[in-house]
């Protein structure tokens, strides 16, 4: 929605504020080969328990276009406070900036990387080793979920995409260390295209959808409902369960697994200096080689044990002709990622 020129002029002339230009946000359009997302498995590596992680890139390209190989590097350079971006500029400057800046990992859509033993010092809450005679260094600040991340770069030619894996670093708070559970990558419970007449067409990964030229559909994305109360035997190791609480009745924490929806998790509230609970917020991003989405992203609101199937919707308008490739990417706000792709065939 745009304000009227009259209102704009009134405010601008009265207070000298500027008129911000509007840009067409075409970040959803895939016009050339692009890396749209990076997924880490596991979604979170625990210190001393998970030595490696596998990174997978979602490479999208228009049909028939040559897709270069993805080159990976693991950033091991800590960014200074004067850098307001998410990663050291040296890591993002070139694919091979030097062994003290980034470790080359090789090429391929998917790569396995060894997580540095010092990751929780480089990118986490553990203070860097002090120099002789000096106090300890400043730890890295966490994200709003209380998380820390090991950065990794996926290079497509000279274009980089920054990915990461969440670091499960222990804190000094005992309750946090006891109750925190490793993040789980989300999963799409269902992906559907709902036509104007209400017909819901399921969209499997790699499937296709036939639409009329310019037809408008609602793309509905849903994910599993996660429990608000931990129950033994549900297969989910929640914050209030451990290997002693569910003995004999379904030990969910023997092989701990999280919920693939909007999880309930604990974080350390630095202001209150105590451990608190919160729910994940899931965001869905949309991409297509043709046609258009109403919004490049939807979702983003924390789901507090909602009734019914949690999810989000977006509108899509089919192109006038031809075939379009579409990708739907689900992210939780703790770094977990999942995606599904499908094609749209336009016929009169």
């Amino acid at each position: 929605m745009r304000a009227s020129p009259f209102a704009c002029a009134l405010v601008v002339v009265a207070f000298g504020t500027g008129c911000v230009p509007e840009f067409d946000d075409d970040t959803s359009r895939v016009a050339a080969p692009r890396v749209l997302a990076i997924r880490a498995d596991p979604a979170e590596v625990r210190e001393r328990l998970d030595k490696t992680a596998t990174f997978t890139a979602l490479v999208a390209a228009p049909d028939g276009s040559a897709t270069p190989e993805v080159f990976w590097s693991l950033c091991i350079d800590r960014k200074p406070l004067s850098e307001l971006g998410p990663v050291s500029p040296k890591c993002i400057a070139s694919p091979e900036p030097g062994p003290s800046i980034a470790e080359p990992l090789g090429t391929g859509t998917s790569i396995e990387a060894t997580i540095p033993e010092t990751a929780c010092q480089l990118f986490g809450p553990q203070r860097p080793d002090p120099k002789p005679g000096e106090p300890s260094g400043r730890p890295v600040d966490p994200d709003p979920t209380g998380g820390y991340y090991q950065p990794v770069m996926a290079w497509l030619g000279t274009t980089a995409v920054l990915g990461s894996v969440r670091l499960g670093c222990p804190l000094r708070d005992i309750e946090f260390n006891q109750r925190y559970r490793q993040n789980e990558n989300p999963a799409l419970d269902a992906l559907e295209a709902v036509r104007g007449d209400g017909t819901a067409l399921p969209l499997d990964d790699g499937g296709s959808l036939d639409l009329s030229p310019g037809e408008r559909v609602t793309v509905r994305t849903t994910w599993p409902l996660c429990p608000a109360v931990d129950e033994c035997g549900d297969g989910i190791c929640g914050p209030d369960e451990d290997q002693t609480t569910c003995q004999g009745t379904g030990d969910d924490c023997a092989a701990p697994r999280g919920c693939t929806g909007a999880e309930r998790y604990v974080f350390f509230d630095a202001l209150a200096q105590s451990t608190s609970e919160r729910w994940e917020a899931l965001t869905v991003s949309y991409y297509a080689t043709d046609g258009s989405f109403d919004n490049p992203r939807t979702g983003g609101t924390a789901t507090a044990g909602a009734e019914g199937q949690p999810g989000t919707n977006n509108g899509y308008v089919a192109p006038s002709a031809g075939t379009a490739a579409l990708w739907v990417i689900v992210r939780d706000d703790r770094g977990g990622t999942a995606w599904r792709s499908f094609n749209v065939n336009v016929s009169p």
Partner: protein
Amino acid sequence: MKPRLTKAPKLVTFVEAEYPESEKSAGKTAAVVLQIGISATGSVSDVAVVESAGPAFDAAAIDAAKRFVFEPAELNGKPGPIRINYRYQFVLKEAVPTTAILTGVVRSRPGGEPLAGVTLALDDGTQVVTDAEGRFTFPELAPGRRRLLISRADLKGLQTEEELVAGQKLDATYEIELLPVADDGEEHDDLEIVIVMPKLVKQTVSTKIEADEGRRVAGTQGDVLKIVENLPGVARATAGSSAIVVWGAAPEDTRVYVDGMRVPLLYHYGGLRSVVHTDLVQSVELIPGGYGAAYGRGLGGLVVVATRDPATDRLHGSVQLDVMDASVALQGPIGKGWSFEAAARRSHLDWVLDTATTEEVDEFYPIPQYYDAQARVRKNFGEKEFVELTGLLSSDEVARVVDSNDPKARKRETRKLRFQRAGFRYKTTTNEGSIVEVLPWFGANQQSLEASFGGVDTHLTLESLLFGFRANFSSKVSDTVVANLGLDLEAARTNGQRTGSVGSPPREGDGRAFGQPPSDQTNTDEWRAVIGSAAPFAELDIGLLSDSLHIVPGLRFDPLFVSIDRRVPREGDSPGVGAYSADMALEPRLAVRYALSRRARLKAAYGEYRQPPVADDLSPAFGNPLLGVSEGRHVLGGGDFDLTRTFSVETTAFYTESTGLAARNPIPSPLIAEALVGIGAGRSYGAQFLVRRNLADGLFGWVAYTLLRSERQDEPSKPYRLFDFDQTHVLTALAAYQLGLGFDVSARVRYATGFPRTPVTGAYLDSRRSIFEPVLGPKNSERIPAFVQLDVRVAKRFTLGKSELELYLDVQNVTNRDNPEEIAYSPDYSEKRYVTGLPILPVFGASWRF
């Protein structure tokens, strides 16, 4: 039988002969022998010359002798007539003077034209009037210190004192300003806007603009304090900004005082209204640098606002209304010796937009909401002594909400700034002209920022309690020396609370792109800081070479102390360990002014300054509790010249440097509680020019130009880069003309170099957050295009009995130029466009004064 003299005659009344002037001036002495006939009663019956000394002496002696009185002679025991010979001696004596002479000339300032018909009146009622050549003479005056009042209907009255010595003639020259007189004989305020570069005790380098002039300038919407932005040395603020940037100093480095009380800002959010009602302002001094020892704690300049004395003749007031706000002011007497003034203003644009549109305009544009109020009560004890109580309050709030289905595009921001002040002042002027002033004051500031963007919340709250005390004693210690001694004390306790990323809110010099979401690495902190200093100062104004040369040395001893409740960020329930630091140093100041002639004056100044860290930067998590004091030096020189009676030129060259500025820690692994370190440096240099036409024949105006370069160094190993507020060229030309019949027109043209910005050279996707991040080029290596704007104002005044109604139309950006204000980028930083400022649009307003 011949009578026998039994008693000789006796002279009882001697009359001094008037020494003939011709003989006296020739230095001649003489003796005249007279034969004097004395009657039986003792009176002189006749006088004849026996031995002449010349006609002049003879005549003088005869004239005196005729008035002698004798006891008569006695002949045979009875009074009787007799003749005697009398030798009258004329001797030159050294006369003891008993009176002094005061003479001289009265001239106009500027211009130096002699003023006829000026009345000079002494304290004993003696008065003279200047002749056609402006000359006057008091021929015989009692010696001592005499008070002199110089007046004429169209002059600003001048009262001065002179020391008269018996037997000496004092030749004085007095220069007085003419008061402008409007065609309709309206009264004029004696409000002055004084730009001082630097301030000297008796003779200031200043540009004075009358209140009436200030209100008539296009683009000010009738707010006199807005005139400051049109003066040399002042950079053009970003559209909507309330910041004042002088000589390339950061806005927070320039301190603003209202009646001696420090306030956090001069203009409300949006930058189009000052926080003090126009009708209450007596004067504002903008001192861009090189200020004297009476002030400190700021590396930039000073803005000193003085409110006017409340009216004592009758009730005066005003009501003003335009599309932005409404205001009211009132002042007058409330009893014998008592007077008051009060004013209030409130914005209403939010209400106007709600009524005039059906849209949620605040979703797109932040709409400032503000109000302010001032009040004063004064008790006068005679003409030279008073006490008063003053109160100020101000509130600003601006909010913006952008809702979106895209969670990364949702934005919410609310900024608030409120302050309150209360001060008590006592001032007295002694008979000898000494001034004593004492001002204790209290205050509070409340500042907050609540924002959410890209899923990252930012919260910042700063609440401060302030106390200040200023005492001044100014006195003439000799004929050529005036001393100013004082104490300047200020202390503030601040409670801070902050949550968010280190880069939000951003600092000057941060590499970022407009509209870039903040980093999602967040921290949180609570801290308390106490910052204070008690600075005694002394300043002398030494007049030499017949008052043509003034040297003003000053010294300020400013011990700054900082106390913080926690040295490191909180960890669990561990008790905080505080920190305290004290820094003491002498700050020398020196100003020199030399009058080459009546029309030309040279000036120079040097000063060393220090500034304590701000409370915001003392957070253990976001700043550094042990930040030290920043230091600076100012050097300036220049002159002003009266080209003609109405045209004058001023020019000043300056250089300032500063060290120990708080900057982001550049190392990858900083120590705990060292997110900021005092390793930054800055420098500014340039020159400013002002060509001015004083009000004459209804026309006034000026051209102000500043050539400036302002740089910062983020760490010693890095080269200097452009300061975020650097503007190479700032040109303002304005003129106002009284058309007659109550019509005024004015126009203003402004040109300013665009601010430097850091270019975006690329971008990459942050997959975890699903947003693009910019890749930045060299810091501040490109500029926003230049700003050019023409504003025009037309006003019509109506006299309604004893009141006046003014209607005005203020059209800004007459040419409808799309002035770029900021660089905006598309979400993936592949496209770049400019945020433009205001289009052409008139602002209509009305004010009624009585």
